[in-house]
């Protein structure tokens, strides 16, 4: 095998999927750095698990990277200040749900890094998970699962680096490949060394040829004797970046329902997570800013912006000068899985990767299901959404339980393809919570 063949590996398995429009308008634009907003509100729960405990009080001086929220238990995450300034207090954070709190910090506009930050020495496997914990790292692809929880080395032989970025519009991970490739590769080798991995597979969708070329060059420069670091071009079909799908594409392994990637020897990390972890280990700067793709049908000048965590969306839009008509939809995340925000005081969180503003009038009129089967063919979990919908509408909870609605990952593919515009994903979501409620 030539070097190229040894590094650039073919996809192991192909699993259905739906072609989506790419709409990656921002792909070739350098990331813009947003200056410090006047005030940030940093939620204490930006992850799955227990909210962090605040360790600062009103009037405290903080810097960029100062620890302000401490994780109380294993499944939780540290929270750091994203600006320098003074703590103005601890408030309720309405968009986060009942009882959610945030730390409000008035910025001094200087963005002074915390003088106490120093590189985090890594000497053994456990240190990697410690570093991820201290960095406040969570799944940056959207799930917000604390990273250190999955970085336990037992039984893991493969790291899958997820750079698929299969949602339309979003290009944050692509820009990470293009702008900070060194951090990516350094991070990969660091993880490989300390977690004792047999292989690292960096997965990029084939609609990003430049990123693949870039990573290939770097990977060749760094390559070790046995080519443990591989690069894989995934077909661009949605949801290629979903954890179970990407593991299947990269390794051919199947994660059974209810199991974790670790059960089949894999860790999946978003590419920005890998480079963020490396930067933390090398410089001590934790996760305090996130690259956000600002785009959507109502956005005039789409761009990527590096935004301090906790910046209100209102400030972000003021900075970019975007304006939009009433009744527009503002989404956090991609168009397939993103959540609509109810008001512009919602803030940018660690797990956000895009803010999309969409004009209304995209929802078409619903008609009756014509049983075309497209929803079933699109479903990555091989469910039958139209049957679930029918069962749900007739109130047959046993039936939709039998149809395995609990396996649904709410990827949105079924609603996307449906010619009758049935609200399938929405029904799946409601049916799932119905079953969860029943179980209790």
């Amino acid at each position, binding site marked *: 095998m030539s070097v190229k063949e040894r590094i650039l590996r073919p996809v192991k398995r192909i*699993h259905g999927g739906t072609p*989506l*429009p790419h709409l990656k308008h921002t792909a070739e634009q350098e990331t813009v750095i947003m200056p410090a907003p006047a005030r940030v509100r940093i939620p204490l729960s930006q992850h799955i698990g227990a909210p962090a405990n605040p360790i600062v009080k009103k009037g405290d001086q903080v810097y960029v990277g100062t620890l302000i929220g401490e994780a109380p238990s294993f499944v939780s995450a540290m929270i750091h200040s994203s600006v320098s300034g003074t703590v103005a207090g601890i408030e309720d954070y309405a968009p986060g749900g009942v009882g959610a709190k945030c730390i409000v910090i008035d910025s001094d506009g200087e963005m002074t890094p915390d003088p106490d930050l120093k590189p985090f020495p890594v000497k053994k496997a456990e240190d990697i998970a410690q570093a991820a914990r201290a960095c406040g790292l969570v799944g940056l692809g959207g799930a917000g699962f604390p990273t250190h929880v999955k970085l336990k080395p037992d039984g893991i032989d493969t790291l899958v680096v997820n750079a698929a970025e299969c949602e*339309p519009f979003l290009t944050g991970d692509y820009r990470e490949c293009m702008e900070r490739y060194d951090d990516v590769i350094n991070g990969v080798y660091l993880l490989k060394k300390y977690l004792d991995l047999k292989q690292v597979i960096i997965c990029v969708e084939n609609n990003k040829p430049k990123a693949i070329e870039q990573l290939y060059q770097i990977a060749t420069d760094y390559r070790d004797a046995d080519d443990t670091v591989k690069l894989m071009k995934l077909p661009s079909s949605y949801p290629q970046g979903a954890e*179970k799908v990407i593991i299947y594409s990269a390794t051919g392994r*199947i*994660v*059974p*329902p*209810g*199991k974790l990637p670790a059960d089949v020897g894999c860790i999946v990390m978003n590419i920005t997570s890998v480079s963020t972890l490396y930067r933390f280990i090398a410089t001590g700067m934790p996760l305090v800013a996130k690259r956000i793709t600002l785009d959507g049908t109502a956005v005039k000048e789409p761009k990527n912006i590096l935004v301090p965590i906790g910046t209100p969306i209102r400030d972000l839009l003021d900075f970019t000068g975007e304006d939009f008509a*009433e*009744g*527009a*939809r*503002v*989404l956090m995340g991609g*168009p*397939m*899985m*993103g*959540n*609509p*925000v*109810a*008001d*512009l005081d919602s803030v940018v969180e660690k797990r956000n990767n895009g803010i*999309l503003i*969409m004009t*209304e009038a*995209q*929802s*078409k009129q619903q*008609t*009756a299901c*014509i*049983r*075309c*089967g497209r929803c*079933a063919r699109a479903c*990555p*979990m*091989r*469910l*039958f959404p139209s049957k679930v919908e029918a069962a749900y509408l007739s109130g047959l909870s046993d039936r939709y339980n039998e149809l*395995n609605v609990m*396996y649904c990952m*709410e990827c949105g*593919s079924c*609603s*996307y*393809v*449906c*010619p*009758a*515009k049935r*609200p399938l*994903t*929405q029904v799946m*979501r409601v049916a799932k919570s119905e079953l969860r409620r029943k179980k209790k």
Partner: protein
Amino acid sequence: MKEMLSVTSSPHIRHIDTTRGIMGDVIIALCPAAVYGCILFGWYAAVLLAVCILSCVGAEYLWNLLLKKPQTVGDLSAVVTGLLLGMNLPAKLPVWMAVIGSVVAIIVVKQMFGGIGHNFVNPAIAARIVLMVSFPSFMTKFYEPFSGVVASATPLAATADVVPSVRYLFFGMHSGCIGETSAFLLLLGGLYLILRRVINPFVPICFIGAFALITWATGGNVGTQLFSGGLFLGAIFMATDYTTSPSTPIGTILFGIGCGLLTFVIRRFGSLPEGVSYSIILMNILVPHIDRLTAFKPFGAKEVAKNE
């Protein structure tokens, strides 16, 4: 100040295909063969097609109006049913019979079962069979192309010595129902639908393939059997109806093969010269069972079963 923002459930983008668009594509695909049928059999054929379409749409419109249901004629499915029914009629059927057929298709077969997506057999085929049973002599009176002379028999029913050449049959220079004569134009329409991803190619391929294979294996005249009669119209446009065909890949293959074999059995051993409609309708009835037997396991569920 709070802005008014819309909050809707994800996903926030939708594919452009709609039910109406899909039906529109089917109509476009049927047009060449329908127009050709009118040229072949004269203006009365065009009248018949128009009557079928209008009475199908009218029946659906009135049904919705009288029962105070949301109006559904905009989805164009009634136009497709009317066009298909018309294309399955002999060129000089009395108009009132065509109207009866249309009403049966829309009211009895489609709306009484709950409308689009709920009928368990194909409305156009069911209506054709009802007409066939009620008015057998009218429904089997076919005409020679252009001349309007009553054909002694369709090529299917003809004895071997008067069978026209395969090339004639393929391009459609022979007697038969209005829309079924030109296999070539129907194939063209089918290709369009496959390219537009409207129909699943497995159904017509398995249908026609299974039929051709068994005809050949039992020493039948493959060319004549294939290109005369309603095989192409049925296999491409009626067996692929979403509602009445299976939705799993293996199911569609079984369904296609089943249709092909039944058509062969009816044509060879039945007293009827044509078996396409009957075989499709028989297979329609089996669809729920096929679907259940070939249902998917969720991704990874097999592995769970193996480990336990």
